[in-house]
């Protein structure tokens, strides 16, 4: 069995969706093909074993995670780093389960962050090559951008990163969060 679309089906095209919200990602999307995809080093933890992200996408996520989940006290060794809890590895696995269209939007956003967003703070380099302070400036520019789509895109990336970071029990002690109760004896109301 296979089914075809009914006559008169009204859908909103992808182009109109993107243009309707500013067209920024459409421009960035065009860049995806042109991105230099070589020269991105995955590091020892992920020697080519990625599920959904390519090497350059993984490195961009890793750079984003390091800034978004940066510790408030860099000297406090009890705070696990984004790398230590493998935020980028989590994002890679999470994105693998996403709807392909959502995945495509994310890739476009990563491409935009890597290649165009630095221009927003007059930095003429790729995001992953910037120092931490300039990367933070880029992220602040995105978070408070006049283009709603960029703000929304930043919020999405931030959620993914924090999901990867605060999923790890080692981070819960920063918050004093006790974690799941399943499997533990609990008292309470009946």
């Amino acid at each position: 069995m296979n089914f075809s679309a009914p006559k008169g089906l009204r859908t909103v095209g992808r182009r109109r969706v993107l243009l309707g919200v500013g067209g920024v990602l459409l421009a960035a999307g065009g860049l995806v093909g042109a991105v230099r995809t070589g020269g991105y080093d995955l590091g020892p933890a992920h020697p080519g074993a990625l599920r959904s992200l390519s090497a350059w996408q993984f490195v961009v996520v890793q750079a984003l995670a390091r800034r978004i989940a940066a510790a408030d006290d860099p000297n406090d060794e009890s705070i696990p780093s984004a790398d230590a809890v493998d935020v980028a590895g989590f994002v890679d696995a999470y994105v693998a389960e996403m709807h392909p269209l959502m995945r495509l939007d994310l890739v476009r956003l990563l491409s935009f962050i890597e290649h165009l967003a630095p221009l927003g703070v007059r930095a003429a380099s790729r995001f992953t090559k910037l120092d931490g302070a300039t990367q933070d400036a880029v992220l602040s520019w995105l978070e408070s951008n006049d283009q709603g789509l960029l703000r929304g895109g930043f919020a999405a990336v931030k959620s993914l990163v924090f999901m990867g970071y605060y999923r790890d029990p080692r981070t819960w002690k920063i918050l004093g969060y006790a974690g799941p109760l399943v499997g533990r004896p609990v008292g309470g109301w009946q």
Partner: protein
Amino acid sequence: MSDASGIIRGRELRGDLKLDVDAVVVGTGAGGSVALRELARAGLRVIALEEGGHHTPADFTQREDQMLPMLFQDGGGRTTRDLAIRILQGRGVGGSTVHNTNLCKRTPDAILELWRQRYGVSGCGPTDLRAAFESIERDLSVSEIPAAMRNANNDVLRLGTQALGWRGGQLKHNRVGCIGSGFCELGCAYDAKRNALKVVVPQATAAGATVYSDVEVTRVLYKQGRASGVQAIARAANGEPVAWLDVRAKVVVLAASAIGSASLAIRSALPDPFAQLGRNLRLHPGAVVAGRFERTINGASGVPQSYECTEHLDYEEGSDKRVWIVPAFAHPIGTASTLPGFGARHMKAMRAYGNLAVLSAMVHDETSGRVEVGPGERPLVTYDMTTADRVQLAKGLVACARILFAAGATEVTIAAIPPITLRSAAELDGLSTAFVRPHGLPITAVHPMGSMRMGDDPRASVVSSTGEHHFVRGLFVSDGSLFPTSLGGPPQISIYAFAQHLSPHMIARARA
């Protein structure tokens, strides 16, 4: 393939299916489960097709990273088209009732009266619906949440509301055997929720209904103005199709939620001569304010919501009081995503987690959103909040801040971008509310409604007051899509009750 509950897991189907039944229900949330049960109890051959999985309490691990993808549409990432509002909706047997926070409020009489007078809804007044409300409340064991179950976050709301002399009170819920773990929005591992998954779907299968999980309905079929069935795809866990289902039925009940039903109707090119389909969507959008306390709050522990402030809520159309205030504490990932900023400052703010109380202001909205179908035939939601609704949201957030200060907060943060941090209630007097605009602060919607609204006038509604489509006989709507306006409060009991109230019409049509 079918487990002890009588639910067939679509992901385990091997080979296409052709089914001939009296009625097919799309979706098994609040509205779908009741329609399914009533059709089965009437002795009809009825099935439900549910696109999400069938989960049991043993699957609920209380971990956000695992439950969001498992229980929510788009893994919790569904948003409006401009990415300004996050829309949380359920996916799976039991629908959004699996991870909701169990608040139970009947449709206010004033709203039912408004629908009768202004929106031409007949036969759905307070007296007409009383029996349905009573019966669903009995089924779900609805009761007032005991004061002893009020956690510190809810107590902050109570203290502040009372200190200001504002109207508020204890809420009702549908839990039995709750141990107050606080993980309601991730599913209840203790099986304490008396919801569609635990109560209504099992009643339906006991009465002879069959439920297929993992089956997405892709088209509603109709011929010469009559519903004739649906087409659907069963998918494996990775989303790959494993089987096609061709279902013939005299009655089709759309219960795929206010976004899912309208988008499916549009995908199916249902007649819509007066351009009503997908219009008038309400989101009941909300945003949060956090107060920092010297005392420990530990808001993640205990029943998440048990108290409400209704000082700024009445149900008049165009009213200047359209805000419902309830606690809104989240687990770490939800909190981290909502707190503005990132990096070191963000982590500093997160360290106050145990001392934060968080309140949410939800707007009884009059903005008319729209459901369309976008790329990949996925739902596309447009929602441009009106100025009047933005003003309401601003007022609500200021009211939350006043409550937090009145309850003893030492610092209050409105989660705007950049964050607005206040040290006393006096600072609220001169506060500019320009931050309440799209992307100016994280806005979340958990109560979508409307989009296929009911009414007797086909020029102003999609379905009649019986829930049947104006132009396709035998096609019914039985979910939050029906409501002509927002309810101003939690909708589940209204959705269950309307499904019950309208079910005799479905039964009559299936028997005809």
